[in-house]
């Protein structure tokens, strides 16, 4: 097996998403969502686990460095800075002109073309974004770069000296699928793999002054989106969905009556 050059280079892909409790409105075209104003944004939760995992790797491997990359409009720089506050050394922002549907293939293509000649040993992503819930970007980056990939990773051990990483993927039925991947590789990180730290204040202060590497998305290719979103709507109810009314106490009393009628409670 080829011995790899030090240092170990890690890239973490992060997405900024809006709070789950946000009200999602449908925009004028009916083809995409619009957020209520003002909306709160934060880092996609699985990506926090990915950043944390990278930081833990770099703490155990001397001479390693972490870079983070995010694709999106101007606001996403806040998420990048948070990752810098957690311990990443460098941030890359692929700037897109506006909010709107971005095909996961397009996102993956941009990140892959950025990463192609940069000799990353390990690329980490979250398992899924909380807003679009595609579960595609990490997997596609791997395929576009011809790298092996493990999704839903719940444990990993990087062995730079052998040029491999050992991982466990979480699968159904409480089982785990153990794999050894040849580096460079892509891992999509499942939540719960670690406990993401809070950014340190001193690092955050430094991050706020740090100049991010910004790249205009139009300058790194124009991949054709393989699919379009043609309409968005609110889901239908699949059950009775009786909404209880009144004060909290009235609702409690009503719920108790319903459960008693069904003999579900004494």
């Amino acid at each position: 097996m080829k011995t790899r050059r030090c240092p170990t280079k890690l890239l973490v892909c992060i997405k900024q998403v809006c709070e789950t409790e946000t009200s999602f409105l449908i925009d004028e075209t009916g083809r995409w969502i619009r957020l209520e104003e003002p909306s709160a944004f934060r880092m996609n939760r699985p990506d926090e686990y990915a950043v944390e995992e990278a930081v833990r790797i770099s703490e155990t491997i001397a001479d390693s460095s972490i870079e983070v990359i995010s694709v999106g409009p101007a606001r996403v720089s806040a998420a990048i800075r948070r990752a810098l506050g957690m311990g990443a050394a460098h941030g890359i922002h692929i700037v897109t002109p506006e909010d709107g549907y971005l095909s996961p293939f397009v996102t993956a293509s941009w990140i892959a073309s950025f990463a192609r000649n940069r000799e990353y040993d390990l690329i980490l992503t979250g398992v899924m974004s909380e807003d679009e819930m595609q579960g595609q970007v990490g997997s596609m980056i791997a395929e576009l770069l011809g790298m092996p990939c493990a999704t839903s990773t719940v444990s990993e051990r990087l062995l730079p000296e052998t040029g491999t990483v050992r991982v466990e993927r979480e699968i159904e039925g409480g089982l785990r699928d153990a794999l050894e991947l040849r580096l460079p590789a892509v891992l999509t990180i499942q939540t719960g793999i670690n406990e993401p730290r809070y950014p340190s204040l001193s690092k955050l202060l430094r991050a706020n002054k740090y100049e991010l590497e910004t790249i205009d998305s139009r300058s790194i290719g124009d991949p054709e989106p393989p699919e379009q979103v043609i309409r968005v709507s609110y889901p239908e109810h699949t059950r009775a969905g009786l909404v209880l009314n009144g004060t909290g106490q009235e609702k409690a009393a009503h719920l108790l009556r319903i459960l008693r009628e069904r003999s579900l409670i004494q």
Partner: protein
Amino acid sequence: MIDQNIVVIGEHFQGKLKRVTYDVLACARELERLRPATVRVVLLGDDVAGPAYEIVQVTGLDVIAMHIPGLLSYNREVYTGVLEDLLDVLKPAYICAAATTEGLDLAPALAVRLRASCVTGVERVLEVDGRVCFARTMCGGKIVAQVRPETDAAVVTVQPGSFEVTTSEDTIPGAVDIRRVDFEPRRSRSLGVTIGQAEDSGLQEADIIVSAGRGIGKRENLDLIDRLAALFPKSAVGGTRPVCDLGWLEYKKQVGLTGATVTPELYFACGISGAQQHLSGMRGAHFIVAVNSDPHAAIFNVADVCVVEDVATFLPLFIKEWEQSLPARETSTSDSDST
């Protein structure tokens, strides 16, 4: 015009077909209804004969069983490598897999290889302006998006439980075509499937499950969940993945895609948003009550009774209501101010 091809990737483990394969088949049947098509099931692995014969018997469809010696469980590199060659020949318009951890791993990779579009978590198939589209939910289940492939081929993953699985009595068995392929992965090596989590959670035996989501806010509020569960006979406490990730509950209490699948008489969901990955574990419950402070939470779409309230204030009210409604005991001090 010749019929188009639809390929279903079957899931199996240790010589047994996984039931989720029938969910995927049901989606393929929907596609077939929209456009004349030949549906084939493809299985890959060392031990494919058993699952292959089950499928041809039950569905009457033909199965291509790629017998790959040494492949004891799913491996992404082998699957994509073997499927790429096979699908280059079959040129299917749709490749359907399950929205499981396997499908999630495979579908995007396969789509890139085949220059196909990829639509994950499909819940419905529809035709809009003469073109086939797929409906999927996003934003924790709050929004449905209709996605239209712009490519000749589409790889889709099917949300389990979304399509009606039908079986007909007298099907003429299809044919099994077993093809041996040797494929040595070069960049990855499977080290085997291990047990990560013991399954004796008490969830399966329970008639009533009270389940906690991130919306319970803090660990201390689990006490409320426990007290609520104690009101019911034969009850157990479960939770969502985030609650387990936070260490508030053990992972064996997790309900959902990568946790337990449960079908209790009553599922009492507290502070749970209703993401598909959670619903797949509990949508078969007989009666669902949901308490959530967000009136738009997706859990309300599958609930029988919806309570838009803060769990931390509502649960104490409910517990108190129950206590006060009991016949007064000899030393009881609680007045009967019942309505």
